[in-house]
């Protein structure tokens, strides 16, 4: 397999570039900032915004560790401790992990499939604004001093009106529903983009594994998110309007809440994990300098994980007193999921084994991920066993397990992806030396932080306690954890520092700094607004390694088909992107990429006002929000003309 030296696709001559720029460039400055529909700008925003939340949530964790560093500590009041762990968990799941993955998807998917934008560019802008407003909504609770304090899972009856009369929980319930809109809309956009915008030749079995993982992510989102939305909304109906869904004295059921919550909650774990493994598959292949081993096996495993993850939610409820038959079923189903996960794991090992490994920073994070995920997977098998789970449930063992899978096996690939795709996202390569320091500090500190938690859990230290007595033998280990946690924070901070420094100092990155295989590396770094001047054609799973990428280069006359014309030289000058037929990727339609518009922002603003109205229980504000929403939406609908062909 020859890795070809090749020209950059999409670097047209100056005159053409000028014409393209006139068509595609956003308005400069502030208006352009609020009106852009460019998937790359939106993707960057998603990533940067979610990292702000990442550092906030990390800070919350460090404050908690400060409290737990020694026994009988009282730096924090117990109420504050509850608020912090609720904020930490909620932020990490809803405002960091999910949106940062959506951000990478936004940036990368159109580039990897050879398209010029998402299928619904304005909807894409809308989903970002909703995410931002939902984040601000949730964090405004900090400003008004009513931070949610019912845990990131917000179980009833604790979070019902009777035991949590304040608006703390309303911030959570409404905020979760709010951010769910963004996730769902984003997933719809990903699915349609992946189905309809792939360039010629990119059949399903040539799609990069990362794109596959985002497809699975999206399908899981649209089927899982309604469950958490309903779980939270029914509680809000109980709280705001006095219904009785979770009120046992009026025939309601508190167990129903747990079923609804975990029916989303378990798939959510894989919603986060699947795209992370997609990133890992890309990086493992590039830095082992060879094709990924078992492409079909990995893709099948991803899809299988997507299905199986919907049948295991009760393993979060082993201690709720359900019938033994149900428990046995869900225990077995939980074991089943180790099979596709194992298949992926062996495929990565085989790729590394047969390849020539380059230990770059992204690859270091990938290898670190493999080790951590192995441990997280093993403890996962352990807690799927009923007797073992009963022994350790609600102890620090579970905290250790969930951080090995959600922090180790998701955040490490995300950091790897930052280093891997930074040249494409920003046009600057991150510093390798600082990157290596960051990785080693993070990796060592991660294990020193979370491994002892297994032991503490076995010794009986319960979760969610704000302090503990001395003489239990927990002191020294807790101190070690707290100190290591600070170092873990420093490790992530080094990457932030690296980012800031490299953006100022690094030389511009070449189009393909890693000599990688997929289409995003065929255009300049960062890509121009139009991604590709002419639509590429691919002939293999690794277009830049095998045979290279050819533009379609259609010199079509005016009488030829619009869709075909849009792929080629003249058609490519317009602000359009070709739409292809789902399976055989032939030209079928033309997507007119919309001009910049503030309408998505206006619609999102209407939604935000509506949620604020619900929160403060002021119907005037709610009605105003809906009115604003409807007017803006009508304007959107009126300007949309989908009736081509």
């Amino acid at each position: 397999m020859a890795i070809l030296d090749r020209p950059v696709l999409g670097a047209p001559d100056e005159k053409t570039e000028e014409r393209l720029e006139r068509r595609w460039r956003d308005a400069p400055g502030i208006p352009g900032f609020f009106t852009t529909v460019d998937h790359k700008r939106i993707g960057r925003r998603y990533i940067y915004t979610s990292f702000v939340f990442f550092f906030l949530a990390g800070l919350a964790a460090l404050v908690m560790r400060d409290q737990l560093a020694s026994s009988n500590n009282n730096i924090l009041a117990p109420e504050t401790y509850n608020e912090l762990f609720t904020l930490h968990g909620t932020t990490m799941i809803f405002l960091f992990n999910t949106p940062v993955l959506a951000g990478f998807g936004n940036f990368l998917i159109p580039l990897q499939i050879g398209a010029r934008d998402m299928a619904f560019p304005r909807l894409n802008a809308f989903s970002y604004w909703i995410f931002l407003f939902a984040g601000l909504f949730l964090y405004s609770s900090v400003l008004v001093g009513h931070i949610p304090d019912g845990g990131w899972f917000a179980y009833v009856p604790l979070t019902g009106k009777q035991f949590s009369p304040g608006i703390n929980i309303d911030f959570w319930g409404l905020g979760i529903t709010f951010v769910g809109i963004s996730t769902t809309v984003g997933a719809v956009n990903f699915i349609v983009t992946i189905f309809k915008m792939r360039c010629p030749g990119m059949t399903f079995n040539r799609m990069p594994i990362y794109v596959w993982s985002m497809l699975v992510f999206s399908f899981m989102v649209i089927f899982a998110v309604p469950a958490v939305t309903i779980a939270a909304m029914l509680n809000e109906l109980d709280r705001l309007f006095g219904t009785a869904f979770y009120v046992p004295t009026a025939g309601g059921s508190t167990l129903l809440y747990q079923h609804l919550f975990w029916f989303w909650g378990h798939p959510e774990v894989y919603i986060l994990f699947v795209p992370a493994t997609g990133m890992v598959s890309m990086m493992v292949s590039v830095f082992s300098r060879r094709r990924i081993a078992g492409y079909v096996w990995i893709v099948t495993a991803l899809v299988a994980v997507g299905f199986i993850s919907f049948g295991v939610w009760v393993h979060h409820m082993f201690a709720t007193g359900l019938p033994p038959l149900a428990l046995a079923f869900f225990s077995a189903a939980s074991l089943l999921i180790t099979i596709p996960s194992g298949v992926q794991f062996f495929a990565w090992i085989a790729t590394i084994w047969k390849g020539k490994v380059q230990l770059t920073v992204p690859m270091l994070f990938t290898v670190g991920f493999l080790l951590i995920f192995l441990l997280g997977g093993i403890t996962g098998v352990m807690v799927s066993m009923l007797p073992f789970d009963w022994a350790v449930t609600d102890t620090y063992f579970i905290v250790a397990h969930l951080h090995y899978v959600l922090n180790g096996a998701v955040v490490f690939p995300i950091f790897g992806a930052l280093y891997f795709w930074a040249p494409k996202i920003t046009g600057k390569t991150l510093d390798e030396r600082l990157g290596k320091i960051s990785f080693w500090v993070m990796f060592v500190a991660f294990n020193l932080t979370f491994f002892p938690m297994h032991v503490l859990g076995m010794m009986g230290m319960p979760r969610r306690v704000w302090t503990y007595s001395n003489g239990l033998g927990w002191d020294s280990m807790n101190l070690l954890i707290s100190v290591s946690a600070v170092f873990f924070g420093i490790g992530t901070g080094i990457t932030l520092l690296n980012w800031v420094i490299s953006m100022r100092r690094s030389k511009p990155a070449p189009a393909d700094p890693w000599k990688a295989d997929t289409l995003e590396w065929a255009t300049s770094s960062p890509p121009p607004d139009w991604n590709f001047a002419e639509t590429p054609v691919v002939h293999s799973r690794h277009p830049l390694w095998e045979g290279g990428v050819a533009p379609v280069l259609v010199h079509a006359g005016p009488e030829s088909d619009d869709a075909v014309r849009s792929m080629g030289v003249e058609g490519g000058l317009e602000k359009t992107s070709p739409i292809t037929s789902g399976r055989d990727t032939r030209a079928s339609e033309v997507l007119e990429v919309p001009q910049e518009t503030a309408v998505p922002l206006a619609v999102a603003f209407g939604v935000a006002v509506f949620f604020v109205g619900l929160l403060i229980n002021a119907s005037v504000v709610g009605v105003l929000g809906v009115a604003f929403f409807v007017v803006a939406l009508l304007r959107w609908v009126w300007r949309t003309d989908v009736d081509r062909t």
Partner: protein
Amino acid sequence: MSVMSPAAGGSFAQPTTKPTYSTAWWGMVTLIGTESMVFVILLGSYFFLRASAPHWPLGGIKPPELRLSTPFSFVLWGSSVPVFFAESSIRRDSQRGLRAGLMLSAVMGAAFLAYTRYDFNALTFGWRDNAYGSIVYTIVGLHALHVFIGLCMNVIVQIKAWQGKFSAARHTTVEVFGLYWHFVDVVWIFVFASLFLSEALR
């Protein structure tokens, strides 16, 4: 840039000959996917509450009546027929058929909505009374909201239809609207069967 021969595009430079679904169609289908899940989960919650209750409906509430709900259900399901008619008309480029179909379906949808409103008034229990009241009001109310949204979409499509914006070649909006309308009708089959029929026939 290296210019490969036009043949590099090969057969891909030919447009597809098979009919394909538009992005708008796929968008609506995925939206319907997630919306279906909303109703699946709510109906699941209904049966969960019902299974864990000592008797059902709770609190000695009379099960919902069928005398009026049945005919009006048929009005709602029947409203899909004029939508089918509207879709097939525009495929034949018949503007009159399109407009008539949309108009009739809107009237039928509105009649169903008026019935729901009347039915809510006639109920002898509120949604605060107990979990039964809560779940019934929520499911029926949410479905009514969907009918209302369908009606709003109907009005928008009609305005465009009366402006003559659609043709045999260009009518994706009509198709996508039709999908949503049929979806709302299909959901009512499950809601009606669960909340009305299964209780009355017990």
